[in-house]
């Protein structure tokens, strides 16, 4: 294994970050709760920038309120602003949940958010308040991926309680990663086809990819309700996806230690092998066979692998993005014969290299070059001499692929230069099929161009 983790000297600047800040991930997770409004405790700019960034990908209205710090707030503390903000968002949005994330500013001045929230509950004096869930998201420790995981955990921590009422005994909890709305819809379809009762968190499949409206929805429809999150304390098992998430820091880990619910960590179900693991587990938990149409989807996928394999073998790909996505794409690409020549992430878990090594398929003996805590400046420097044939990652690698004259197969977040980012499938047999076709066709496109004769038959 070659791990050029290129540990940055502490004084080097970040050039074109390959990560985003923590509250963005938290806000994304809150979008997956029914009737939730997201509130960022800090100054205006952060929430506006994060909204713009999310909107440019999802192309949906995304409201994130801010407690709008001023100079006074920064000096005297944000308690008063937060109180007023909570009151205002409740008044205007009538939410079923208020999800509060913190920005670097409120974290640095040391606002004690739980205490402020207790004050708010106390002042309400019994008047009904929606649940207010807080996740601490200082950006100077962690990335958006951590904010996402942290917010899901905070939701479960605050809301999942054993209740007396009957819950289906075979119910499972599903904690998806930062997947597309299309992925989440597909995941639900799989669960339904297995006839397995489930609670999924977050579920922004509708809130971030919905239809046109005839009246304005203050909060878009869809999402997992507060009571469904409560049910999660009574599941038979939790399934979480995340190759690099630290044990015990996740929602599934919390449910396991608090309620003894077994937690299965599968990693991103990208590629046939990883998807097989998911289907096998669902089969085991539900006691049902793999539903026929999924079995056939798998068959067609394998057939296409065979049809396309010659175009792919030995092609070199650069993969980048969140660590879990990189690991998922690594597993997928290596199983179709592509060589990931460079695997990079801005993520800071420090576990990417060992994760990829553990995913090394039998007989794959290429060195695995990993850039951890990397930025696009480093990715560019590292990629230029590799003779890479393609990049697989989000829109932000485009300036490099343009320079190198190679295709960019867009996956993950953000997709800011194409429509349809929220509709890309990444997971399961279906996602695999979609990606396989796109990857193969990207290479065919290059080949076709390179012939210079304009063959219409390849």
């Amino acid at each position, binding site marked *: 294994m070659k791990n050029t983790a290129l540990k940055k000297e502490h004084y*080097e600047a970040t050039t074109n970050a390959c990560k985003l800040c923590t509250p963005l991930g938290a806000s994304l997770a809150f979008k997956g709760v029914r009737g939730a409004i997201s509130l960022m405790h800090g*100054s205006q700019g952060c929430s*506006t920038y994060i909204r713009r960034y999310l909107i440019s990908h999802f192309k949906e209205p995304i409201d994130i309120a801010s407690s709008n710090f001023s*100079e006074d707030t920064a000096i005297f503390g944000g308690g008063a602003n937060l109180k007023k903000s909570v009151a205002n968002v409740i008044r205007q949005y009538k939410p079923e949940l208020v999800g509060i994330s913190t920005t670097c500013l409120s974290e640095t*001045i040391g606002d004690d958010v739980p205490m402020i929230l207790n004050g708010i509950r106390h002042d309400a004096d019994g008047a009904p308040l929606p649940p207010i869930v807080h996740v601490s998201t200082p950006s100077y420790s962690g990335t958006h991926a951590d904010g996402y995981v942290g917010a899901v955990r905070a939701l479960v921590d605050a809301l999942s309680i054993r209740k007396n009422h009957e819950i289906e005994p075979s119910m499972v909890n599903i904690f998806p990663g930062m997947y597309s709305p299309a992925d989440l819809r597909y995941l639900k379809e799989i669960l339904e086809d297995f006839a397995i009762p489930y609670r999924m968190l977050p579920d922004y499949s509708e809130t971030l990819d919905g239809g046109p409206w005839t009246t304005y929805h203050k909060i878009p429809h869809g999402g997992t309700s507060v009571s469904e999150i409560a049910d999660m304390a009574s599941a038979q098992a939790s399934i979480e996806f995340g190759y690099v998430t630290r044990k015990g820091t996740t929602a599934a880990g919390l449910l396991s230690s608090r309620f003894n619910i077994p937690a299965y960590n599968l990693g991103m179900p990208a590629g046939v092998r990883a998807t097989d693991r998911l289907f096998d587990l669902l089969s085991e938990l539900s006691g049902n066979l793999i539903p026929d149409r999924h079995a056939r989807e798998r068959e067609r996928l394998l057939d296409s692998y065979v049809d396309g394999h010659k175009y792919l073998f030995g092609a070199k790909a650069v993969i980048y993005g969140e660590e879990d996505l990189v690991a998922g794409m690594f597993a997928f690409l290596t199983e179709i014969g592509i060589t990931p020549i460079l695997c990079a992430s801005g993520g800071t878990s420090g576990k990417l290299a060992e994760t990829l090594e553990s995913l090394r398929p039998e007989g794959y003996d290429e060195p695995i070059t990993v850039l951890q805590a990397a930025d696009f400046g480093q990715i560019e420097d590292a990629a230029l001499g590799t003779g890479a044939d393609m990049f697989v990652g989000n829109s932000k690698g485009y300036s490099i692929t343009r320079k190198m004259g190679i295709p960019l197969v867009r996956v993950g977040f953000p997709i800011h230069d194409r429509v349809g980012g929220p509709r890309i499938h990444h997971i399961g047999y279906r996602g695999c099929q979609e990606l396989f076709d796109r990857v193969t066709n990207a290479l065919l496109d290059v080949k076709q161009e390179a012939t210079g004769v304009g063959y219409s038959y390849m």
Partner: protein
Amino acid sequence: MSNISILKEREKQIYHKGEEPFDMVCETKSTAGAVSQRACVFCGSRVVLYPVADALHLVHGPIGCAAYTWDIRGALSSGPELHRKSFSTDLRERQIIFGGEKQLYHALAALIDKHEPKAAFVYATCIVGIIGDDVDAVCRKVSSEKGIPVIPVHSEGFKGTKKDGYKAACDALFTLIGTGSIEGIGPNSINILGEFNIGGEAWMIEEYYKKMGVEVVSIMTGDSRVEKIKRSHGARLNVVQCSGSMLQLAQMMEKKFGIPYIRVSYFGMEDTARALYDVASHFHDNTDIMDRTKALVKEEVDKIYPDIQVFKSYLKGKRAAIYVGGAFKAFSLIKALKALGMTTILAGSQTGNSEDYEILRDMCDDGTVILDDANPLELSKYIVEKKADLFIGGVKERPVAYKMGVGFCDHNHERKTPLAGFQGMYNFAKEVYGTVKSPVWSLLKRPEDGTKTV
């Protein structure tokens, strides 16, 4: 739509034309807990300085501020493209506790060695204001070591609004102005201020001036270079576009260098023509300039007029909502829309002042809603109530319009299409026509429950 109520604190920032009295409140901090469309001080500074293409722009703070502003603007450069890179000190917990000065110093020094910029701007963001780094001192040190101007931009997000960011940016530019040689600058010379070369707009405008026989010393900051900014005090007139962003710089230059300024707008045929005529009449000693300007305006208008009439015949009577950053832009847009036969039913801005809103009021018809610092709920409420066919705004407003089945025109810095000047008016009209006339809207008129079309 009755299901959207207006927050009490916001009522005074919304005015319905025709109501008395007119006592709009503006230039305030956004209400806590509102979903403001505004950004922060840093955003204001970044917008103004961003297009300086041969300068290093280093954002001092945690990663977000830099990551979210990486290459998002359509400001073109004809040469170096250093401005399109996003540099951040990416502060981590350690520096939050022990301070980030060392980090800043080393980052700056290494970046300057690597990229050899002509100057460096160092943006201090929120956290820096809290942990108390002496950014000025670090900048001075690096500047003396590297021999280029290293200019601190005090743009801590919470210390005001976007307008304060404009001010900080003007202050930063002002430190450069007057440090270059003004040799060879002629008498009929101008600086173009407040023009950021979105989609190549500054080039089009510069071309107009060239044809008029007016020398453009610098453009601030579209496609600009440090050297040109340094000698911009040699120009005889500052031509300032846009209300907020660069007016202060023009005033500072007037005070220190005695350069007069005029305010113009390049949006719409009417305003573009007026801008060019105003500049021409400033140089009235040279009557050739006015003659050439007349010829130029005629030629340019003739080029686009027939097409505009085609667009107009369809757009006549359609209704537009405008929500933009600065109010000055709204004035031009109202006029440009009028030229297309359209009426404005909502006009608002993030940062207008009371004078601006009075002008807006006087320009609009009865019933028009005038908004300061609006949020998505208010915008959606009024575009539905007022039956808008078109919304003009930025990326954050677009989904609000689309969800409600209203056409949209992006008039922000993110766009890639030039909308200034005569050609820009054509592009604008074409875009408006295309979005309003698109057949997709007719498919949306189905009940949401999926039952049969009405």
